[in-house]
């Protein structure tokens, strides 16, 4: 298995270089000049623009800029923001912990509630509870997250007065609860549907009949034999979902004023801060890669027939 993991890790290198190069080129191709943007609508100063570009190496050809970026990256240097003159590493270090907390919250919520709902409705397929869950999940899938966000804000902050409408302190788990639930809502619906289908199908499988015939207690049949085998598609989904939760929270972060990765990358993109965008996107790519590796390893845990040698 060690060899398998090593091989997978080695495969990440070309993916990593390829994705950074792609994003780097995309940022380069976007119209608008980040240095000229420093002057807003006012008179740009050509002498100064040249000086700033020269200092940041933005006057070099694209390949040279990329080379400088990559070599800097391997020395732990993410570059410097053009307007704020802050190291990009600082900006990332500030945004990532917030997002990781939010994502973990959302993720745990998705897994616990989603799998539970899916399991129960799978066990009682086509009964009343299943129908209710179906309607509920359809609702979650079809309602856009900003509607849900404002709705929750209205309900819990203004009508019930339980929480402040926005996050005041992103280290307070109680305050992150609301944005986390909104963020998790869509994935929750998918996880529920996936689990439900998988459970309902596996319920009719031979090995379940065997387990029941062996006289195993119901708890063991459902908890170990049924659930473990039913989780494979769910785990696949969750693995890719982690990246989506991290990067795709722009709307939710905006509504609840959480200063996480989504907002940071959005602002950087608007200001054409290439190094910031590439830096964050690269980290998210890495998160995706690691998550998918974990998913593949988890397959073996869930299904003993799968081996990596």
């Amino acid at each position, binding site marked *: 298995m060690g060899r398998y993991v090593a091989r997978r890790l080695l495969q990440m290198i070309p993916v990593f270089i390829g994705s950074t190069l792609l994003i780097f080129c995309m940022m380069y191709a976007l*119209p608008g000049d980040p240095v000229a943007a420093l*002057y807003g609508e*006012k*008179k740009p100063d*050509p002498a*100064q623009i040249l000086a700033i570009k020269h200092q940041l190496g933005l006057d070099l050809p694209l390949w040279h800029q990329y080379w400088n970026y990559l070599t800097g990256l391997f020395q732990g240097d993410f570059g410097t923001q053009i*307007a704020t003159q802050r190291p990009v590493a600082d900006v990332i270090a500030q945004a990532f912990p917030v997002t990781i907390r939010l994502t973990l919250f959302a993720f745990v919520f998705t897994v616990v509630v989603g799998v539970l709902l899916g399991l129960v409705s799978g066990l009682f397929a086509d009964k009343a509870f299943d129908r209710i869950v179906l309607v509920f999940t359809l609702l979650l899938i079809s309602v856009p997250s900003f509607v849900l966000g404002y709705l929750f804000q209205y309900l819990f*902050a203004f009508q019930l007065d339980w929480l402040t409408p926005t996050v005041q302190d992103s280290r307070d788990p109680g305050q992150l609860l609301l944005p986390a639930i909104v963020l998790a809502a869509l994935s929750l619906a998918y996880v529920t549907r996936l689990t439900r289908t998988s459970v309902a199908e596996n319920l009719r499988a031979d090995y379940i009949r065997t387990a029941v015939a062996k006289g195993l207690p119901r708890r063991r049949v459902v908890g170990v034999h049924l659930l473990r085998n039913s989780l494979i598609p769910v785990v696949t989904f969750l693995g890719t979902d982690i990246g989506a939760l991290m990067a795709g929270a722009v709307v939710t972060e905006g509504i609840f004023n959480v200063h996480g990765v989504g907002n940071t990358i959005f602002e950087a993109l608007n200001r054409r801060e290439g190094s910031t965008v590439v830096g964050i996107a690269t980290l998210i790519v890495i998160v995706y890669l690691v998550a998918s590796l974990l998913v593949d390893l988890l397959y073996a*845990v869930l299904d003993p027939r799968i081996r990596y040698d």
Partner: protein
Amino acid sequence: MRGAKTMKWSTLAAAVALAATACGGSGGDGDSASGKPAGYVSMFNGEPQHPLLPSNTNEKFGGYVIDALFTGLVGYDAKGGLIDMNAASVDTKDNKTWTVKLRKGWKFHDGTDVTAESYVKAWNWMANVKNKQANSYWFDDIEGYKDVHPEKGEPKKDEMSGLKVVDDHTFTIELSKPVPYFEYKLGYKTFTPLPESFYKDPKGFGQKPVGNGPYRFQKWTHNKLIQVEAVSGYKGSNKAKNKGIQFKNYSNLESAYQDALSGNLDLVDGVGPKDLPKRKADFGDRALDVPYAGTQSIVPVFYSKPFKDVDPKVIQGLSMAIDRKTITKTVLQGTRIPSKGFTPPQVKGYQKLDTDVLSYNPKKAKQYIKEGGGIPGNKIWIQYNADGGHKEWVTAVCNSITKATGVTCVGDSKPDFQTDLQARQNNKVKGMYRGGWLADYPLNVNFMQDLYKTGASTNYGRFSDKKVDELFEKGDHAGSLDASVKDYQKAEKELLKKMPAIPLWDYAANIVHGEDIDGVKVGFDGNVLVTDITVK
């Protein structure tokens, strides 16, 4: 089965590692205290785009903080008049050499005195091309600017020859040519003094500035808040009436609005489109719309197919085809005031123009366009940036034009402001573009010279007219400020005949504030005068 077991452990370890990074990172988030000290005012703001230096701040979020921390030589009153701040007097006989006398006893927040040297040295540093300050061009009137800021290459000198320290509290500014309204420019935020401590570590200063203004810098937690504290011994006329300000960082207006509504935030100086219709219901008389010196217009580009060699009458016709009153009331929810000229009423030199070009008159509009020879292709475009909430009114203006005159009008949306600006700079606008202009200093000159003078850097319409240029030139060489203002007033009347732009409406600051504060006033630039806010 053994393989599966080890795998279980490795996955577990990975999960633990992930969780650990999450916990370990929590220290980077800064202060946990979200409460504000008693007597402070919390207000909506965003992350400043630049380090906090007067010479490098040209956007609103940083501008608020700079204005709180620094006080320059002069300021402006509510009608666009000049008032002396740190200066006891600013005098000139020939508009070329200006003598500045400073008030005595002013101190920086680190305890050192504000002297003539604090100004002269700071300005020399700010203007120097090597220091790459975004506002350096403000010094280009001063004699010797070219030496410290050549168009190409290294600066020849470290000091501008036009700045001379006479004594501790007097210095003179010599300009390369007379500028009758130079004192107005001195009110811009880059003309501030810097303390001696600045030169030791300019970079660190940008994160922890020391000023001479009504507030002292307390802390900057990136992405969260900037806090400043009122200075008790401050000698200026704009002494703070509250104990301090918390500039809180919001990524959008909507979430700030919610916070203001629930009492977590004292003041928001902007309202998102979602909340505009209900702001009066939510806040009552605590929802204010205060007009300020900013205008929005649509600008024809004179190299484009529809407007090449156009008869100004056609543009006048288009202007009369726009129902400003209805659009500001309905689409813009009363947040704008229909324009009555090329300058807004809050600036010195505003005049009532006796004209019907800016009022809605579909019949006359049609007639004017016909008389002017019509528009080639009978179609115009209005370019705008889609990220600024302009789509609604551009569509409304287009509908109004089409309905009144039969000229096809379509919005030409660019994804963001950057793209929009680039198209303007590279002469790639198809017909018209959305122009917005906020006053740098409240004088009518500021609303004309940079926009409509031949070859001016922000004259993206590439408008060029001999008579207008002559009048501008005359105003720039007038013997006094008043004479200069008058010449520019004449120029404005001329502009109305030539129509380098179609003025649409003036801005108003849309403010909502909580019950705990009072005395919310707005300056000419649309910024809330934070020193005037009182806390109940």
